[in-house]
Structures are given as C-alpha cells and as structure tokens.
C-alpha cells in the first residue's frame, strides 16, 4: 500500500472479526515498523511491548487484560493486543547506543561527534542525557518516543490490511497482570485484527483545519494550505470522504446486532 493511502486509511477500528486470527508475519511487521522508528540517542531499549494473542496467550491473562481495558467491546473482539510500555531503565543504554552510531558512521566528526564528545559534552548534559536532569522531562520524552514507535505500528497494521486501535486501561492492573517491573509503565494497548466494520469505518474522522494547527514563522500566524496539494492528497487517498458516510448508521445497527451490543 502506498504511504499516503495508508495514512488516509487509518482509523480507530471499534469492531473486529474476533474469529479471524492475525498471521504471525503481520504481527512481526508491525513490531519491526515500531523498532525502526526514530529514537532520541537511538536508546531504543526504552520502548517495549508485550504481545497477547487469542488462542496462544493463556485465556485468563487475556480476559484479565480485557477487564483492565474496561471491558470495551473492541477489546473483547480483537484477537491481538500489543501492550506498549516505557522501560525507563532503557536510558542506561544511551552511551552505548551513541558510541555504536559513531562506529556505524551515522554520527560523524562533520557534526562534532567523537567518543570524547559523548563523555564530556553529551552525557553530562541533561537536555540530551535526560536521566541526568529533571525526571519529569525524561518521562515526557520517553512517552513521546514511545508514541513515535506506536504511530509507525498503527500505519504498519493498516498497510497489512488490518484494523487497529489504541485503547487505554487501568495501568496498575495491566502492570500486575503482565509482571512488569516498577520501572516499566504500560502506555496504550494497540488492538489488532481484521475489521468487522468496513475498513473506512464510516469515513475519515473530524480534524481541526490545517491552518489552526500549523503556523508560519511565528506562533499563531496560520500556515496556509495549498488547494492544489489538497487535491493531490485527495487523489492519492490521504484525504478521504469525511464521516459519517450516509450508510454508517445502518452499518452500526448491523454490527450491534451481530455482536449483541446496544445501539
């Protein structure tokens, strides 16, 4: 699938075919897309995940997680959960990760990088070695970095023809169910499966206008979108028909009937 089409097709899917398992190669591709995403200092050991698969993971674990996700219907239906987590101990790998980047010629002297520079300028600097400074910032940055990986994982799921969604849950309960140590924080749970609703899920969700989000030169000065580019993005499938599509209410009624859910 083309990148623009994958971005345009992504939705939070709330009805899954519980009866159709997800192929292992597709799960692996989703995780690889996350593993390869950009990461501050290449300290990728801070973002990890536990994969739960219907029929493979013990059912009591899966059921306990569904309960921790407030028993939401899409959690009950999805055959795969990817429980994304932040492992703060992963920041200990920062020095080694940077050194490795020098060794593979990703960080070069053209930009002032050397082993000595890492030791004397980077590691003592709390803007870069975030664990050396304010831990609130370290946690904020960790969440940001984990989110980057999850963003890729969402698009990889769409690329594989799957439906996906992020749901929240009771984090303390999730940590306990999955035996996560105290320095690990479960973040969002990514549900994965084949959509029971149409893949466009009733149309593209509302988003604020481009000009309200992006500024030119100074905060508050709207950056104008170009109508010609907008037309190109529509043609490429990134910008799609907005929700609700006219048959959506009927689709929801049919899905409610299928799953025994209130309308």
């Amino acid at each position: 699938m083309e990148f623009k089409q994958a971005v345009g097709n992504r939705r939070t899917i709330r009805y899954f075919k519980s009866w159709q398992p997800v192929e292992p190669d597709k799960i692996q591709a989703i995780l690889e897309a996350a593993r390869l995403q950009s990461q501050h200092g290449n300290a990728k050991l801070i973002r990890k995940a536990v994969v739960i698969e219907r029929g493979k993971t013990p059912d009591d674990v899966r059921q306990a997680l569904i309960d921790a996700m407030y028993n939401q219907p899409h959690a009950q239906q999805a055959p795969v959960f990817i429980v994304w987590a932040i492992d703060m101990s992963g920041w200990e790998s920062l020095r080694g990760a940077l050194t490795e980047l020098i060794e593979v010629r990703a960080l070069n002297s053209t930009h002032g990088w050397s082993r000595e520079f890492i030791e004397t300028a980077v590691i003592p600097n709390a803007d870069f070695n975030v664990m050396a400074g304010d831990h609130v910032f370290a946690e904020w940055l960790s969440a940001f970095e984990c989110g980057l990986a999850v963003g890729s994982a969402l698009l990889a799921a769409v690329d594989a023809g799957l439906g996906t969604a992020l749901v929240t849950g009771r984090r303390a309960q999730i940590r306990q169910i999955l035996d996560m140590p105290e320095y690990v924080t479960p973040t969002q749970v990514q549900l994965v499966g084949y959509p029971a609703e149409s893949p466009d899920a009733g149309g593209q969700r509302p988003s604020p206008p481009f000009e309200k989000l992006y500024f030119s030169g100074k905060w508050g000065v709207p950056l104008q979108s170009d109508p010609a580019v907008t037309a190109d993005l529509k043609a490429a499938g990134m910008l799609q028909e907005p929700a609700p599509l006219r048959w959506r209410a009927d689709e929801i009624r049919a899905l409610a009937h299928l799953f025994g859910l209130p309308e």
Partner: protein
Amino acid sequence: MTEHAFDASAAVRKYVEDLKGKGLSGAEQQQRLAILAEFCAFVGRSPDQMVAEIFDVETQKYKKRNFYSDRVREFSARISGTWSERTARGNVIRGFFIANGRRLPNEKPDWL
C-alpha cells in the same frame, strides 16, 4: 409511576433525544420506551431513580452496577426467543443507561 411522570423524567427525555439522534422512527422509539417502562416496573424504580443510584457522583464510582446488570439479564430472560432477541430487549435498558452517561456490561455471544 404515571405515564406523564415517566415522559417528564429527565432521564427519559435524555434517552428520547438520543433515540432521535440515531434516526429511529417514532414507532421504534415508542417500542423502546415501552420496554423501558416495563423494566422500571420490574425493578420498582423510576428512570431517574435508576440513573441516580447506579453511580455515585461524589466518588465517581459505580454503586449498583451489578444489581442492574443482573436485573437486566433476568428481564431479558423473561421472554422466549433467540439469544439475539432476548439480548436486544436487555440492550434497550443498556441504551437507556448509556444515554444517561452510565454503562452496564454488555452480553457476549457464545462465539466471542
């Protein structure tokens, strides 16, 4: 509870607004309101009482969720019919609570 009091109930009015927003026909709305009225008689409470007692606004926690969940299940089982038909009857009550900001656990089909 009189028919007038039922229709005037704040919780019922919210439910009616919700049904209208979903594009249900007048007949479908009336059918659901009749099921709701039947359930109120079944549990001996008004719609407003049900909404008030299921959730503690101060603690932000459910109080009588299990009670209502069990009653809805019993209420559904009172009619003969398929699982879907019985569940649909209970889902009218679940829908009423949802329109009033409260959620009861859903029934899961055997195959899920």
